[in-house]
């Protein structure tokens, strides 16, 4: 069987899907295609199924929060980003797709379309990202929390979520602490 030689993912995607690429970042030998959210599903199907690309293996989905403790989000286009680390077993190379998403104006959670139909492995990875970073993956069949308890408030991996620790209880602060522990009182 004749295998089509590998083609450059940047050129291929920008030629086949005009308007889908926001920008391209090259760093330390890794290529990142920054994709517009609206075109994400088209891009993932394209890079998986096009001869010469065949990115058939989803390694990882990791969400990033660009919130700065000093305020603002630096020079990034939006506060949140979701990274898809994909791998082509045939051509033995990796690629990172990245989408930037922001919260809604009314403070609603950022929304990204789910890619489970393309790479089923993304199911739990998306659930983890939505649990930890508060990103809604539209179309994921299971929207429950994955790692945190079901009734947990907040999303721990956001940068404005404190690392957290338990205050040591002394007689001077026992009342303040007990306010947060309704069931510890008898």
């Amino acid at each position: 069987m004749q295998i089509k030689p590998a083609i450059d993912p940047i050129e291929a995607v920008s030629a086949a899907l005009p308007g889908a690429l926001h920008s391209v970042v090259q760093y330390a030998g890794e290529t990142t295609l920054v994709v517009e959210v609206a075109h994400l599903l088209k891009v993932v199907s394209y890079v998986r199924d096009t001869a010469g690309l065949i990115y058939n293996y989803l390694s990882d989905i990791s969400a990033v929060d660009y919130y700065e403790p000093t305020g603002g989000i630096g020079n990034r286009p939006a506060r949140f980003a979701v990274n898809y680390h994909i791998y082509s077993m045939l051509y033995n190379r990796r690629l990172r797709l990245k989408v930037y998403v922001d919260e809604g104006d009314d403070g609603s959670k950022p929304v990204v379309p789910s890619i489970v139909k393309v790479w089923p492995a993304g199911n739990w990875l998306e659930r983890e990202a939505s649990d930890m970073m508060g990103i809604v993956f539209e179309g994921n069949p299971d929207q429950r929390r994955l790692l945190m308890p079901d009734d947990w408030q907040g999303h721990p991996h956001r940068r404005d979520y404190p690392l957290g620790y338990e205050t040591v209880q002394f007689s001077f602060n026992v009342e303040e602490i007990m306010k947060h522990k309704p069931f510890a009182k008898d």
Partner: protein
Amino acid sequence: MTANSALENQATEWVGSLDDVKNLVTERALTGETMLLNMGPHHPSTHGVLRLLLELDGEEIITCLPDIGFLHTGIEKTIESKSYEKGVTCTDRMDYLAPMSNNAAFCMAVEKLVGLDVPERAQVMRVICLELTRIQSHLVWLGTHAIDLGAMSVFLYCFREREKILDLFEMISGQRMMGSYIRPGGVWRDFPKEFVPTVEAFLDDFPRRIDDYELLLTTNPLWLDRTQGIGVIEPDVALAWGFSGPSLRGSGVNWDIRKAMPYLGYENYQFDVPLGEHGDVYDRYLCRIHEMRECVKIIRQTLKRLPEAKGGFRSDNRKFTPPPRSELGHSMEAVIHHFKLWTEGFNAPDQEVYVAIESPRGEIGCYLHGTGGNKPRRVHFKTPSFMHIQGIPLMSENHMIADLVAIIGSVDIVLGDCDR
């Protein structure tokens, strides 16, 4: 409110959890025709704290819903608050059976992010540690897998050999398990004199021990009955669901990151990648057994390379690695570097990298995003156990509960690795 009345209140307000899983189990569970049963989180064969919600028709599994997160300790979040060198200690605690692999994945990500070179000798030393880790992780897997299926003596034999490797780790790092021996730029310190002879003695002894395990299991009719044809997963399904490592190779997919994208000079060593054929529990077992033999081959080659490998055990770039203590007495530069590194650490650019290596369980990937400062913005680990637990329902449907124990054991999960 008293504790008792609070409980009573909860009991009356509780509306039942069946609604939560309504779309995830079949209709028959809602009518009571099939039974919903919890397996775990406290169950000896779940290898940690894994809860499986099973829908059963008699003893047959209709659906299996894994529930994870009981061992979630926020390690990624913790690393975000530490400098890069201190973050290494956190990675030990994720996959506690293969701490060196986690160290290596994290350190290689840091090195890639800041552009730090690792001397050849340090790379060889890392390979020795990684392969010893692979052997000891596989030994725990074999022991627990066998004891799950009723073979008690294999468990004891495996732990006997594992102790020797843990002693070796104690020799080099002072710690049996969580050594944090691999650091950005190389390893913590040079091997002590007695290390290499001890490893050689272990390697001389070990292949015979593997023969012993095989004698007990490989052709044992009880073992064959329990493992052959159980938990079959097709190669394309395994790939689509993100399997990696021996669990993927058991299905016959030849993908080993050590071969495909060599790191730490793995391209210099001669070794084979054992492949399975049927994708069942037995083939995954064979893959790991053969992998241990390959590890012995690799370590022998590394020991030959070690004396002639160039460079020290750690990079000399003092912006990233601390100077040896002997320099602190007479060099002002060394004192400055020492102070800077231990108070503040080094800075990494506001960029992102993804590094994946072959851990004993499969692909462990470290996504690292710097801020330009001395702490990472985001660390995310792609861990093999996470993906394999996701795949357990695929393998276990229409099997008996007893087979589920074999399936869980065969994908070699560690819950610390999964939940992080």
